[in-house]
């Protein structure tokens, strides 16, 4: 209670200053009057009584001041006064204020913007109940299955779910693309088949309607669907009566039973959920890694404990089912960490870079503030001489620098709203829809709190630098000096240290920026094995109901290709299931080689499966290496054939005799037809993260028709100008078919690596800012030190010193400072470059040319920064410089 009252007193003292003052005044006045009347009563005359009373009391003002201090008014009041004073000082030098506040705002703003991404993507990626107890579970075959391949067989998943002891609950799911809608208006939508307990395991409820009920996982009673908020808004116009309505998915009628909340999109980018209905045979399957699984750890069970328990589990399955489960290890990874593997390196790099920019800006500003402090030395000495304590001075300068950072923080916040939105929308949806939490990137309470913290930290840092300066003020000496005040060696060392720090940050930032930009340029040319120029891509998804049999599908696409090829300017018209740069992995398949000895379950080879029309390889100009290409003769009734990629040929037929061999899709017990390898085509980089030499099997479209295909047209002029023509061709065949995903292949490639491009741009900006700030910093310090030596230089020149020697003296100092900075920065840059190379998907690699170029650049900047002030000093007439001071 006491402290409440005490605070009340203080506040009263500050806000009702006049009232408190009046009371104090009255109290003391009463004392004097009471003494006077006492003196009168003792027989003194009126005059005498008054004089004696006042004399006895002593200094009234001094007493008042002590009373105020006893009440603790002092600190508050003086703080307000200091802030007012600081504000006036800032207003007096608007140029300095503007420059410093802008520099700081830039540094803080960069951090705010990047932090908003880190906040959304790393700290709050999902809105699930106790996110940290959710883990992904999958089976590892011990071979590289490509990016993001974490699957489990339905049989093993069921075993795991029924095993007591590991998880509180477990659920499985798998992506499925649907043609949504009825004839004439079928839209492709990416959905997810989920176990009925899927949402319960995540701990998420519907925004409207209900979740799936037990029993709905049985084939036949599974025709219920839950839609995402986005789909509800976009596709159904936010229809309030949506629940209970019927929805056609792949030609089957589903009832919409629920709508999910706005922020739910797991697993991204699913927009629709239906029950995962497996037949008993499918459920028992232990050979196909076909499902994804999520589990919630039991309370008190750590991830590593679960992982240890799973080793035993895998061992047991291996013994029980050696034919299917040999060599498969069940693995867990925290859901949150799964994300990190992808986004952490990108955004931590950006955050580190942004914080370097801020450090650089702070070092720069510290230097400016320091320079100003030297000019204010006499003021400080005067204040000290008048009795200001060190603490009091600290408060004065801290409030000044805090003003800077507060202004900069406010500015940064104001800008951040716009810049964060720009960042969020600068990357195409085609990429960001795969990043959980992307739409959550915004300036929220966390981001604002972060900004305030950063601004406060900068303010305190600057205040501390200032204090370094005041600590060595000797009033007696300073006040006696005539000039602007001398700079002691200690102070010069601090300023030099700041310059060295700036050089370090600048080089590190420049190297990072250079490497990122180089990485981007390299990525742009990473799509190898085909020629993307002049190719149009268009996706078509035929409705399941109207195109139930293969002949119909076949007919539609055959007519479409014939019509498209007949269009003037179209060189080749072709089909493929998954064109390069689609941001989607190819479908993978196990395959068995005819005549090869039986292999262990975990050694069954797998490959990407592509289905392509004969023109595909011509359309993309994929090289043709051996055997023959697909021809129109490879029809549904002729012998089944495949082409394979050269990577696959080299791996499985290293002697170069692949053509003629037969393979079949599926594991060893597969009943699929045998397919004869008739030729080898060049390797194609499918997506920028895929290795170039991934094995690919190409089946001819005529022998394995699919409803969803991508049409690729190689054209002789601007590809998009052929879109109306293609519509004209498609309409008479089936007016109900819509063309989607229309884009040129070149743009598709640019979009697919947009994130790296944005990173490159951001890093480039950071690097430029770093270069500019550090140049200013080096120049500022050198020009000042030269200015201070003008007198000395004048004497030397007058005594006949060689101007060149003097120039060398100044340049030597510049080189020394920069050299120290570079010597420290070089190993740091190399370490960071190495870390980047290993983290950012291998697109960045250590490059000594970049390191050398930026080192040289910084040295040149330093030389220039030293040369300019030195030349100015040389030109001054010795007589004038001697009179200087």
């Amino acid at each position: 209670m006491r402290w409440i009252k005490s605070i009340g007193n203080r506040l009263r003292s500050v806000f009702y200053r006049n009232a408190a003052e009046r009371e104090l005044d009255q109290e003391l006045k009463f004392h004097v009057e009471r003494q006077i009347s006492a003196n009168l009563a003792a027989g003194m005359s009126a005059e005498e009584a008054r004089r004696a009373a006042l004399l006895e009391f002593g200094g009234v003002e001094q007493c008042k001041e002590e009373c105020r201090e006893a009440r603790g008014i002092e600190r508050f009041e003086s703080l307000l006064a200091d802030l007012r004073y600081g504000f006036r000082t800032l207003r007096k030098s608007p140029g300095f204020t503007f420059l410093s506040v802008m520099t700081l705002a830039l540094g803080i703003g960069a951090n705010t913007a990047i932090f908003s991404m880190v906040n959304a993507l790393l700290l709050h990626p999902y809105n699930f109940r106790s996110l940290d107890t959710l883990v992904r579970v999958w089976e590892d075959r011990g071979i590289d299955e490509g990016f993001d391949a974490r699957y489990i067989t339905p049989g093993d998943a069921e075993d795991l779910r029924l095993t007591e002891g590991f998880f509180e609950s477990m659920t499985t799911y798998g992506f499925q693309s649907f043609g949504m809608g009825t004839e004439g208006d079928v839209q492709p939508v990416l959905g997810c088949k989920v176990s009925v307990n899927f949402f319960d395991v995540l701990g998420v409820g519907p925004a409207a309607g209900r979740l799936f009920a037990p029993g709905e996982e049985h084939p036949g009673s599974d025709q219920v669907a839950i839609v995402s908020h986005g789909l509800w808004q976009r596709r159904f116009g936010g229809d309030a009566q949506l629940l209970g309505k019927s929805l056609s998915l792949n030609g089957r009628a589903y009832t919409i039973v629920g709508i999910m909340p706005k922020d739910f999109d797991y697993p991204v980018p699913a927009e629709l959920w239906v029950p995962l209905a497996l037949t008993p045979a499918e459920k028992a399957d232990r050979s196909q890694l076909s499902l994804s699984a999520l589990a919630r750890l039991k309370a008190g069970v750590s991830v590593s404990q679960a992982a240890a328990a799973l080793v035993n589990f895998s061992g047991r399955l291996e013994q029980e089912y050696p034919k299917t489960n040999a060599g498969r290890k069940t693995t867990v990874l925290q859901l949150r960490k799964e994300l990190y593997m992808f986004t952490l390196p990108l955004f931590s790099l950006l955050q580190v870079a942004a914080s370097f920019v801020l450090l650089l800006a702070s070092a720069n500003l510290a230097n400016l503030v320091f320079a100003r402090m030297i000019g204010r030395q006499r003021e400080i000495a005067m204040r000290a001489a008048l009795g200001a304590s060190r603490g009091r001075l600290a408060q004065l300068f801290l409030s000044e620098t805090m003003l800077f950072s507060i202004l900069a923080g406010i500015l940064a916040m104001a800008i951040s709203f716009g810049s964060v939105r720009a960042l969020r929308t600068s990357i195409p949806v085609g990429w960001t829809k795969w990043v959980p939490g992307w739409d959550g990137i915004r300036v929220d309470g966390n981001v604002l709190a972060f900004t305030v913290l950063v601004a406060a930290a900068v303010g305190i840092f600057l205040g501390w630098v200032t204090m370094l300066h005041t600590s060595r003020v000797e009033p007696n000496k300073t006040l006696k000096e005539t000039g602007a005040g001398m700079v002691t060696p200690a102070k010069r060392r601090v300023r030099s240290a700041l310059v060295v720090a700036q050089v370090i940050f600048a080089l590190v930032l420049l190297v990072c920026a250079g490497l990122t930009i180089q990485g981007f340029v390299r990525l742009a040319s990473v799509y190898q094995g085909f020629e993307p120029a002049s190719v149009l891509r268009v996706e078509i998804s035929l409705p399941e109901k109207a195109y139930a049999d293969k002949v119909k599908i076949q007919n539609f696409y055959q007519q479409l290709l014939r019509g498209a090829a007949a269009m003037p300017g179209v060189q080749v018209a072709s089909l493929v299931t998954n064109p390069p740069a689609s941001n989607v992995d190819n479908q993978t398949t196990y395959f068995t080689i005819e005549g090869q000895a039986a292999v262990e379950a975990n050694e069954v080879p797998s490959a990407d499966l592509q289905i392509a029309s004969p023109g595909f390889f011509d359309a993309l100009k994929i090289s043709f290496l051996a055997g023959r290409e697909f021809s129109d003769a490879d029809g549904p009734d002729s012998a089944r054939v495949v082409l394979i990629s050269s990577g696959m040929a080299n791996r499985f037929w290293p002697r170069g005799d692949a053509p003629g061999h037969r393979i079949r899709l599926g594991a060893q017990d597969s009943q699929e037809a045998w397919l004869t390898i008739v030729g080898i085509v060049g390797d194609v980089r499918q997506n920028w993260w895929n290795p170039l030499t991934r094995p690919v099997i190409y089946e001819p479209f005529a022998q394995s028709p699919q409803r969803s295909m991508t049409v690729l047209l190689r054209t002789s002029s601007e590809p998009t100008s052929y879109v109306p023509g293609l519509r004209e061709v498609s309409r008479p065949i089936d007016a109900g078919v819509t063309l989607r995903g229309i884009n040129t292949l070149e743009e598709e490639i640019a979009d697919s690596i947009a994130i790296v491009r944005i990173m490159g741009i951001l890093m480039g900006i950071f690097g430029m800012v770093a270069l500019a700030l550090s140049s200013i910093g080096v120049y500022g310090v050198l020009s000042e030190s030269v200015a201070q030596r003008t007198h000395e230089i004048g004497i030397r020149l007058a005594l006949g010193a060689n101007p060149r020697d003097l120039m060398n003296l100044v340049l030597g100092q510049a080189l020394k400072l920069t050299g120290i900075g570079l010597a420290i920065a070089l190993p740091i840059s190399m370490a960071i470059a190495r870390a980047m190379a290993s983290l950012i998907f291998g697109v960045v690699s250590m490059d000594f040319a970049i390191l050398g170029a930026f080192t040289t650049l910084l040295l040149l900047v330093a030389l220039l920064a030293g040369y300019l002030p030195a030349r100015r000093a040389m030109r001054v007439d010795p007589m004038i410089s001697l009179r200087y001071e």
Partner: protein
Amino acid sequence: MSKPTDLVQGTLDLLILKTIALEPMHGWAIAQRIRQVSKEVLQVNQGALYPALHRLEQQGWIAAEWGESENNRRAKYYALTKSGKKYLQSEQANWERLSAAIGLVLKTA
């Protein structure tokens, strides 16, 4: 009396607290009372009295209230708070222990 005895800060606090323990008093009366009770030995300097009063109030040992003085003027009366009473007791005990100890040393040594 030559020069009024300088009071150690803590001692002044103790004297003030003890003085107003009986009844609320204003500053002038406190000074008078201390002088009378100490038989003119302890002279309280006003320049020290009022800051001490304000400090004690700030610390919550005493509370101030405006009231009517004996000569019908508005005066600020200080009274001991509950926590002030406890504080006074412990300080007084401390003081007695200390002075007894000093007395012992002075007598015997």
